[in-house]
């Protein structure tokens, strides 16, 4: 009897505080529902669809065949081409951006030089795609202005000397146009963060410039530089429009192969296309995640 009564009292008491909290929780969730619905439908859903499709055969049964098919020679070749291009392009961008940053920010040049480069970099890092390809064709194509000037004024034939804009090397040169400014923009705060006390301390202890960079400057910058490298890598890896406008559909980097696959099913197997897409997302995801981890580590010094 008493036991019963206490139980009912507890039951009566319990819901009272929890009812309003449940209601407010529900309302809070409703506020972000449009965002989650939208991203679920038009971002996460489509990607998940491809990811599950990558592990299915044409009949919808689970299989690893598509993953195994990623190992076929032409697909390995296109991943290898993409990765080599992206690594070299990121390396060039990182080194050139670092040199430019060092010269402009720490090199003792007047501050308007830095401002001009910062403004220009903001624009150039966003000037990618088809128009960028056009600009380089007008400059260094077979009839490009620089090619013609070199030939007519200096008697130097670029193309006879082995240069070709429509090649791996040419593509690297074009990519540099958006990679270098991007590197410059993200390395600039890190270069600003190199405290002058560290340099002074090193100088007082008798360190040369070289020793300062080797033992203080570069180790402090290392996570930032590595992070930027990964960001540039992903940036190059995902580039499609620039390559397409410059080379047409014949240059088999991964995005182009996928593009062709969607257009005309060149792989004769849509599920292999899913596997290709999954491969791209994994590579882009890994390099971006590592970038974020390294950025957090780099921020240690800026506190």
């Amino acid at each position, binding site marked *: 009897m008493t036991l019963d009564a206490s139980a009912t009292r507890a039951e009566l008491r319990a819901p009272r505080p929890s009812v309003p909290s449940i209601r407010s929780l529900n309302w*809070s*969730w409703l*506020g*972000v529902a*449009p*965002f989650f619905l*939208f*991203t679920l439908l*038009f*971002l*996460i*859903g*489509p*990607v998940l*669809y*491809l990811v599950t499709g990558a592990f299915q055969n044409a009949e919808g049964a689970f299989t690893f065949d598509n993953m195994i098919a990623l190992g076929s020679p032409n697909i390995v070749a296109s991943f290898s081409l993409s990765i080599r291009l992206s690594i070299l392009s990121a390396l060039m961008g990182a080194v*050139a951006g670092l040199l*430019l940053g*060092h*010269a*402009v920010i720490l*090199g*003792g*040049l007047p501050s308007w030089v830095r401002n001009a*480069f910062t403004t220009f970099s*903001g*624009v150039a890092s*966003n*000037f990618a*795609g*088809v*128009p960028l*390809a*056009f*600009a380089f*064709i*007008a*400059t*260094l194509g077979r009839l*490009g*202005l620089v090619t013609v000037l070199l030939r007519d004024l200096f008697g130097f034939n670029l193309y006879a000397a082995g240069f070709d804009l429509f090649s791996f090397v040419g593509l690297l040169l074009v990519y540099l*146009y958006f990679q*270098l400014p991007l590197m410059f923009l993200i390395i600039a705060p890190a270069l600003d963060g190199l405290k002058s006390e560290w340099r002074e301390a090193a100088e007082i202890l008798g360190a040369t410039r070289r020793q300062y960079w080797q033992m203080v400057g570069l180790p402090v910058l290392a996570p930032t530089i590595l992070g930027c490298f990964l960001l540039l890598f992903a940036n190059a890896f*995902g580039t*499609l*429009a620039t390559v*397409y*406008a410059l080379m047409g559909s014949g240059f088999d980097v991964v*995005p182009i192969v*996928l*593009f062709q696959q*969607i257009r005309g099913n060149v792989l004769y197997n*849509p599920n292999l*296309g899913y596997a290709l*897409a999954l491969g*791209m*997302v994994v590579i*882009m*995801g890994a390099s*971006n995640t590592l970038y974020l981890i390294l950025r957090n580590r780099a921020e240690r010094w800026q506190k």
Partner: protein
Amino acid sequence: MKKSFPFAAAITAFIAASYFLVPLIATFYFSLRMTRGELSFAAYRSVLNSPEFLATIGYSTVASLLAIVMGAVIIVPTAYWVRLKIPKLRPVVEFISLLPLIVPPVVLVFGYIRLFGSNSWLPLTGSTQGTDVLLVLGYVVMSMPYMFRAVDNGMAVIDIATLTEAAESLGASRFRTIIFVIFPNVRAAIISGAFLTFSISLGEFVLASLLNRPAFGPYLVQLGQDRAYEPAALAVMSFAFTWACMMLMQIFATKKPGQRWFPRLPFSSAQRTRA
């Protein structure tokens, strides 16, 4: 302390500047040479008079503007709500909004074509209007990282909790608060994100091409295959356009709520102090 002229730095800066400027100058010069033997703006006239150019740029402008509006409508209330009510969810929302950076457009559109194909539960690609909608939604997704960052930064500098309390104590509904209090205060941030979105989606190629829409990006690629001088003219215009978008973005991103659009003239402020 020696204070000699920094030769090494100057040479590096000079090389970088030439790398940046030579293609622009060359492209501009190239674009002027359409008429044999003289420099003229013939290539620009040819582009601007082409009905195809006007049609595709019109289409892409409308699609981009719609994407900007939709993006703002989705992002602003979400960013507001997450900051105000569910800060625990902020990392999740931020992570999702950054996801488009690791999903290349070609993968995104592949998913769209498969998920919203004509035999699917939501056959958006089955009709022209449906495909247009999908293109706009794709642009919203692609611009989400930038839009979210811009709006979130904009909200960080205003005290949304106090603003909301003030609006509520004056009897405003939640909806009214968002429309008449929050939106105007992050307007500059939205516009700053909008210019970046605009510069990304106006010449976008992959989505438009694979969804088979008559947008500006595919037209550009086609023109590049057919003509010699017009592409150079378009590259110059496109660089100028990107420049304008970035400048405007910068101006709006650094503008504080309530700040005037143009700095007060020093002349008038001097007068004021004297008075």
